[in-house]
């Protein structure tokens, strides 16, 4: 009986000891740790990868995360340089690393009770900055850019040798009519370059059209009013209009007070332009550039003033307002093509052809992708093509 009691007591003791020891057992370390310089980056980063600790899934005291450790040599003290969550099999170490300096790495797997174990040392790895990004996405963008630039340049060169056809656009044909109308009525023309700053594409397109319009206005001896929203745009508009009057051989007719800055605030600018429309009663209003909420109010006030209105913008919502409220609207890309249409310069027309080639490629790739999506389960080639096009 006594022996039985002793055996039971000993077994219980061992069981308790065993469970106590189990709770304090640190987690197994990660294995197969590798350290490599992060590719296609500006440097000071190293990619670490490892096989996760098998103790992530254990019921008691599992691994809750990993700590990345770095040192300048394999036997100098390691310091923490980052963290990764449980389940991760890789991370990027970047805090405090410098380019062209070799580092050694360890990964510490830790559990909730702060027990941990460390991996073998990996390294040396030397972070460096790369001079070219070789990730697939960037390569595709580079290929696309070279192709589109090639299309445009080829067609610009071709346009210099032969006449290229582009179809007529109603809004652009109306520009001449609008200027003629203003001349006949003896009323001014109002030109609004929009609310974009000088670096925006829509505003640059507005400058191009303004130059052509101003030259015609100078030839027809009408008056052109250009109230500007942005101060840099104002500076450029002054140069554009002055230059156009010079080109038309009428520099003396240029009135610098007709090209002026109003304010760099949306609604005060709108209020000022509305006032100009109602007082000066221009025969023709041009709205070319980047517009926001004020577009409708400008167009409606222009209608009240009895003006013919020609608009062009690349903002979708404002396009819809201009279509409803204006007589002619240049939709999206038509605004960018307007300069080529008005100048009729071979390089400008050639660039439109190049854009059209780009659109053909876009439509072809889209169609190819659609066919691939349809047939991906049927023919392996299309499955592969779809993956490439969608960058999967």
């Amino acid at each position, binding site marked *: 009986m006594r022996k039985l009691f002793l055996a039971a007591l000993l077994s219980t003791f061992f069981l308790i000891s065993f469970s106590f020891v189990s709770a304090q057992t640190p987690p197994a370390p990660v294995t197969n740790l590798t350290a490599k310089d992060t590719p*296609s980056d500006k440097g000071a980063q190293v990619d670490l990868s490892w096989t996760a600790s098998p103790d992530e899934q254990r019921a008691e005291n599992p691994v809750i995360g990993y700590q990345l450790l770095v040192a300048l040599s394999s036997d100098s003290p390691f310091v923490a340089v980052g963290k990764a969550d449980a389940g991760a099999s890789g991370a990027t170490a970047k805090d405090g690393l410098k380019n062209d300096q070799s580092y050694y790495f360890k990964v510490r797997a830790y559990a909730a009770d702060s027990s941990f174990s460390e991996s073998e040392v990996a390294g040396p790895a030397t972070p460096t900055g790369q001079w*070219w990004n070789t990730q697939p996405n960037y390569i595709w963008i580079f290929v696309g850019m070279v192709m589109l630039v090639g299309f445009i340049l080829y067609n610009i060169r071709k346009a210099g040798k032969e006449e290229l056809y582009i179809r007529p656009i109603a809004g652009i044909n109306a520009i001449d009519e609008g200027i003629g109308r203003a001349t006949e009525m003896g009323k001014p023309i109002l030109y609004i370059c929009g609310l974009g700053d000088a670096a925006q594409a829509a505003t640059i397109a507005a*400058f191009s059209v303004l130059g052509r319009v101003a030259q015609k206005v100078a030839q027809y001896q009408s008056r052109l009013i250009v109230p500007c929203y942005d101060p840099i745009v*104002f500076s450029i508009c002054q140069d554009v209009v002055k230059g156009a009057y010079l080109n038309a051989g009428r520099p003396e007719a240029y009135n610098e007070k007709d090209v002026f800055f109003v304010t760099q605030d949306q609604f005060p600018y709108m209020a000022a332009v509305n006032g100009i429309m109602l007082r000066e009663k221009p025969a023709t209003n041009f709205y070319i550039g980047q517009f926001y909420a004020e577009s409708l109010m400008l167009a409606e006030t222009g209608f009240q003033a009895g003006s013919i209105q020609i608009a062009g913008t690349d903002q*979708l919502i404002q396009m819809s307002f201009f*279509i409803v409220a204006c007589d002619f609207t240049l939709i999206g890309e038509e605004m960018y*093509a307007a300069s080529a249409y008005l100048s009729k310069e071979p390089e400008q027309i050639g660039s439109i052809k190049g854009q059209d080639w780009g659109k053909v490629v876009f439509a072809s790739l889209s169609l190819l992708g659609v066919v691939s999506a349809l047939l991906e389960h049927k023919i392996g080639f299309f499955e592969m093509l779809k993956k490439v096009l969608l960058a999967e």
Partner: protein
Amino acid sequence: MRKEIPLAIMLVTGVFMAVQFFVPHEIPSLIYTNLNKTVQVVGAVALVLGIVSILSIHLAKIGKKQPGFGYSYFLIVFFVLMASSGFLPKSLNLGSFLGHGGNEEGSFFLNMYNYVLNPVQSTMFALLAFFIASAAYRAFRARSIIATLLLLTAIIVMLGRVPIGPAIFGDWIAELADWIMAVPNAGAKRAIIVGVGMGILSLSLKMVLGIERAWLGGGR
């Protein structure tokens, strides 16, 4: 030289900014991230040019007593008041109604913003409702198939997005509005985006290469 140097600057900066996208190295990154500061400073200085323009026009109007010159007085007075109040020392007290100097809470500068600029901006935004009704009324005179299509779609989306539409016509109008927004609208929007993208890319290339020189003034 007056055009050649700006065109050369345009070419160098344009090519650099295009190429730096593909170059992850630190130096081009640094130049790119600091470029915004340069643009901001140039823009801020250009504002001075703009202010000189406003003041010279309105002062000339007052000097020549052109029609409406009385309003120019108000414009200049309020501009000077607002601009100078922002530079007054904070310790200067203009009374409990006007406020103190500086441009923080309780200052004259901020009071002008809160009681003059802000309400008028909100009012102008609200006026858009009147003008949108006026534009819609004119659009009702749809004279072509495409104008009719635009009008019908606008009506369906308008009614489908507010409770009164389904209350009068049934749930189908809300579902139709949602479908229009999600399907044909999204499709054509992409076509516009692609077209605009091509146009901008072409324009940017022409500018960098010096083919597009309108911004320089004086044409070719």
